């Protein structure tokens, strides 16, 4: 029997050798030790995967000589929790709009020095002074999108225009809601005609009641692979973030994304500077670099998202510019809003949401 394990030892050695090979041909991304005063300049970014294309990062490295690492997180919630618990090492973080507010409240980020961001005026006016961060004090928006609904026209005769479709008994068993309390309540408040920033107890109760009534009709709550399920036909209609729908709509012409007439919501992902950042100058250089129209356009064309940079728009590919799952016409956005105080809203909605999910 010992002979077997000798063979396995050989297999193990081969595996280790493979790792060494991978190490040799992998990119020179990170893995290095901390900063030192005479070392080449560094920058450490903590961001969503795919939103800063690798080509953009390497172009930046080449242009400035700053060695840049990008680590990824899977949700705003984990990122905030990790930073709140004291994790350091990152300079720039790319949170979504409500997480900017949370990070600011927790005193983890600093106000930005706009004098160092010469390209700031390239942003669309609506993104130079965002409602969740007045005057863009803490954050610089990078990309944006909306929260609305998506449906498969093979099973549902369009066009669908209202949140009410998610409560339609005709689709029982084929409706998905997002597994995210704030996102679900956006629909629940708006379907009742309320503003989802409402703190009125009666309105909250009504919204919760709507969700309770919707429960038996649902296939489930899903924030992971709902786009795939929609595309495969197991789900016919779902609440969705547009960014998840873009790839499936590209290959499945039956998928449509709509911002409901009640308003929906919009989200942005932008950059903030951590209080514990060590490479502040490099951070400003990076943000300024991304604000350059050519860079923003190249990134947007590669990763298929809507850029917040107005000056970059002429350079965006027409196919992306006209894709309804990427760019919602600005006129439709007039009723879309964001949470003004997500932390406070969370506290108000928790109990009902837990009860809804605990049945």
């Amino acid at each position, binding site marked *: 029997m010992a002979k077997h394990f000798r*063979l396995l030892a050989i*297999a193990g050695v081969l595996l280790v050798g493979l*790792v060494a090979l991978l190490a040799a041909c992998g990119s020179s991304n990170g893995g290095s030790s901390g900063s030192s005063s005479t070392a080449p300049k560094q920058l450490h970014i903590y961001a969503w*995967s*795919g939103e800063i294309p690798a080509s953009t990062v390497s172009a930046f490295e080449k242009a400035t000589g700053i060695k840049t690492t990008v680590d990824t997180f*899977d949700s705003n919630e984990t990122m905030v929790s990790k930073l709140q618990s004291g*994790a*350091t090492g990152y300079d720039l973080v790319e949170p979504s709009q409500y997480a900017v507010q949370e990070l600011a409240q927790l005193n983890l980020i600093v106000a930005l020095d706009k004098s160092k961001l010469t390209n700031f005026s390239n942003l669309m006016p609506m993104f130079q002074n965002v409602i969740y961060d007045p005057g863009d004090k803490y954050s610089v928006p990078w990309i944006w999108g909306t929260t609305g609904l998506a449906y498969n026209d093979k099973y549902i005769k369009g066009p669908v225009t209202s949140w009410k479709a998610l409560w339609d008994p005709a689709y029982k068993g084929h409706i998905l809601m997002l597994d995210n309390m704030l996102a679900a309540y956006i629909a629940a408040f708006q379907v009742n005609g309320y503003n989802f920033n409402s703190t009125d107890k009666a309105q909250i109760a009504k919204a919760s009641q709507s969700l309770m009534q919707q429960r038996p009709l649902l296939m489930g709550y899903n924030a992971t692979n709902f786009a*795939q399920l929609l595309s495969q036909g197991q789900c016919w209609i779902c609440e969705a973030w547009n960014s998840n729908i873009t790839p499936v709509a590209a290959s499945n012409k039956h998928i449509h994304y709509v911002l409901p007439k009640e308003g929906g919501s919009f989200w942005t992902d932008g950059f903030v500077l951590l209080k514990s950042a060590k490479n502040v100058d490099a951070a400003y250089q990076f943000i300024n670099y991304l604000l350059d129209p050519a860079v923003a356009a190249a990134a947007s064309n590669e990763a298929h998202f809507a850029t917040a940079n107005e000056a970059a728009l002429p350079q965006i590919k027409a196919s992306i510019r006209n894709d309804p799952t990427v760019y919602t016409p600005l006129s439709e956005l007039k009723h879309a809003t964001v949470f003004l105080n997500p932390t406070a809203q969370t506290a108000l909605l928790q109990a009902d949401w837990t009860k809804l999910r605990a049945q």
Partner: protein
Amino acid sequence: MSRTRRRWTQLRAGALDTFFSVATGVVYVFLLAPIVIVVVYSFDRSSTGFIWTGFSTHWYRTLFHDGQMWQALRVSLVVGAAAATCATVLGTMSAYAMARRRFRGRALFNALLLMPLVVPEIVLAVAFLVFLVRVRAPLGYFSLICGHILVVLPFTTLIMVAATSGLHRDLEEAAADLGASPRQVVIRVIVPLLLPAMFASFVLAFLFSFDDIVMSTFVNGVGTTTLPLLVYSMLKLGVSPEVNALGTLLVAVTLVLLLTTGVRQATVMLKRG
């Protein structure tokens, strides 16, 4: 004991054995079926995954150029191997002590061991992170490996406890009586007997470490994003089928290794005649 009764017992034993073999076969089909799906769809042209639109090796080409994926894989493999090795060694040592020695506070040690199992991983991870921050430990490979060892130590220790409890004490004493020094007893008698269990323990520990998300999220540092973390963070823009391609490649590598050892096995057996 009558002959018919013996025949009946033998038949029953034989039937039981067949049942076990067939049932295991079914279980392995169950285990590998999703992998077949992953392999098949890694060659699918579309980016939504899981709706067949045509054959393409596009995702393999994309994967080849994706430095971030390879870096993440490297981190996961290194951390996995290190954590699994440490945990197996520590687990064997503890298990041997518990099986062979008497000591006070054994119940306490057992309880200590079970803690990482019973406390939900996110609670453990956040608390460990806070601890690391307080003692100003650097976040990176070291914290990742420690965190992973914590998560898998109960598993390795308990497997080795199960293994050592079946170890016949007489073998060690016989070896000692034949003149083996304590060290020789360990190396020549105990370790070879425990090797299959240590292997099982290492494999389980490596699996958990490789797949671990929660602990890794909180205690990793700059430049040490593990593979599952990277895949999870792709959820927002849609998990790229590159992940299917990577999975297929890794599966292929493992199968090739298995085949080569299997071929060597066969040639050795053939040579024996």
